[in-house]
């Protein structure tokens, strides 16, 4: 029976060719960014597992992915998949050690990678997950605050308030690592980048 169905429906139908092409194009365009997101937060093998899970979710919900905002949508899924994974495991500790490392575990794959500032990584590792994720979305994923808000499923105004707090905590944490001190300027919590 040839009957149209949602490619993610639990009907067991093989999805249409168009859906498959759409999915492959989505993967081709965004898999690298999603993998970069996951590899910045966990080790390589887990990152690839998460990547696969993200795109399996994408397959299920292909029709609900906003065409002009797919990357942000996928990163939001990646965040939730990682969050679910961490619930029951010691991966939070692994993440901390991952962040605190001065270079990627599989260093050599990116020999020209900027290995970063260990003080900054230590400071990030010491933050709670909400503060850290916000700063990483802006700094590592280079999202704007509206995109980051969508990934975090919060309103932009809420994000601005959180960002203000996160910056202050990050500054304190950074100072605690021995990083040269710097001033924390008072800012308007609705400051825009």
């Amino acid at each position: 029976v040839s009957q149209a169905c949602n490619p993610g429906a639990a009907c067991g139908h093989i999805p249409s060719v168009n859906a498959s092409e759409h999915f492959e194009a989505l993967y081709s365009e965004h898999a690298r960014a999603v993998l970069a997101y996951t590899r910045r937060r966990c080790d390589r093998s887990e990152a690839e597992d998460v990547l696969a899970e993200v795109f399996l979710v994408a397959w299920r919900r292909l029709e609900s992915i906003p065409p002009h905002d797919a990357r942000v949508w996928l990163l939001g899924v990646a965040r939730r998949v990682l969050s679910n994974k961490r619930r029951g495991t010691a991966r939070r500790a692994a993440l901390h050690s991952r962040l605190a490392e001065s270079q990627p575990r599989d260093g050599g794959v990116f020999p020209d990678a900027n290995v970063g500032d260990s003080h900054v990584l230590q400071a990030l590792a010491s933050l709670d997950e909400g503060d850290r994720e916000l700063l990483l979305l802006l700094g590592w994923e280079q999202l704007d605050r509206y995109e980051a808000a969508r990934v975090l499923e919060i309103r932009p105004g809420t994000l601005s308030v959180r960002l203000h707090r996160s910056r202050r905590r990050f500054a304190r944490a950074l100072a605690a690592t021995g990083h040269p001190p710097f001033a924390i300027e008072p800012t308007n919590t609705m400051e825009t980048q």
Partner: protein
Amino acid sequence: MRTAETIALVQSANPIPLDPPAPPIEPLLARLDRSARTPESPLRATLRTGTRPSRIPRLGLAVAAIAALAIAITVVLAGRPSHGGPDIAAAIARAITPGPGVLHIVTETENTVAGAPARKTHEELWSAQSPRRLHTHSVLNTGSETIEDEGALLSVSPPRTLSWSASQPDTITESTQPVDATEQTPDAWLREAVNDHRAQVAGQVEIDGRHAWRLTISRPPTPHPQLLEGRELPAPTVLVDANTYDPLESVAYALSSTGGHPTLETITTRYLAYEELPATSANEAQLQLASHPAAKITPEPPAG
């Protein structure tokens, strides 16, 4: 320090400043094809993961091999007797068709991939029909960590499931997401396979002192054949008790991914118990989630 400076400082510490190359899509397509053909029941996904019903086969976590088995082999038993013996398929069908009691299954499953430690899952499951209910308890050992999950389907209509994980012992997650009412026990694939009459009896063997029929399973054609280095995956095999026809062991194969490269995953499931218990109140009680006095029931959080 203003926001832009803070973000620039964070950015300077990015350990992966360049987007890495993504793994090839083919293993993912193979998984999608398998899940489209024989989806993991949303219920089972719920019970295993404690998250919303999903068709996601979980690579790293609770791919309890029974589910992986169901996904991987898409089996159908070609049950015609191949050498004039008894109709093995019909006998198996009778043996594994649920009755009015409480079906109790205990399995041990080992997922192995070359070069990686085996993942072992011990699962105990109780299920009943009319109305359909299910309770599973599984312990996955990855070699580096142990993940214990428990779940119960209390009602298909309206849908209600509860799940608990040792990782969050204080929380029981309640879901009212629709569940798949058609596939809820690990032997469902076998029942479906028997009904489709596609298996070959490959002889008798002995396992743990018991005589068993050995069956090889043929795959149905798929638009995306599961290929490893250009060849289709090996055919799964199933052992059933030669006297009772209860399942004893199955060996299935799946296309997995290691470092982005397709690899062969072998899934061996041994049935330690397969029995139908009478529908007594004590046995019916096994269909409930175990008591977790310290746990609070909370609605399922939103997810992908």
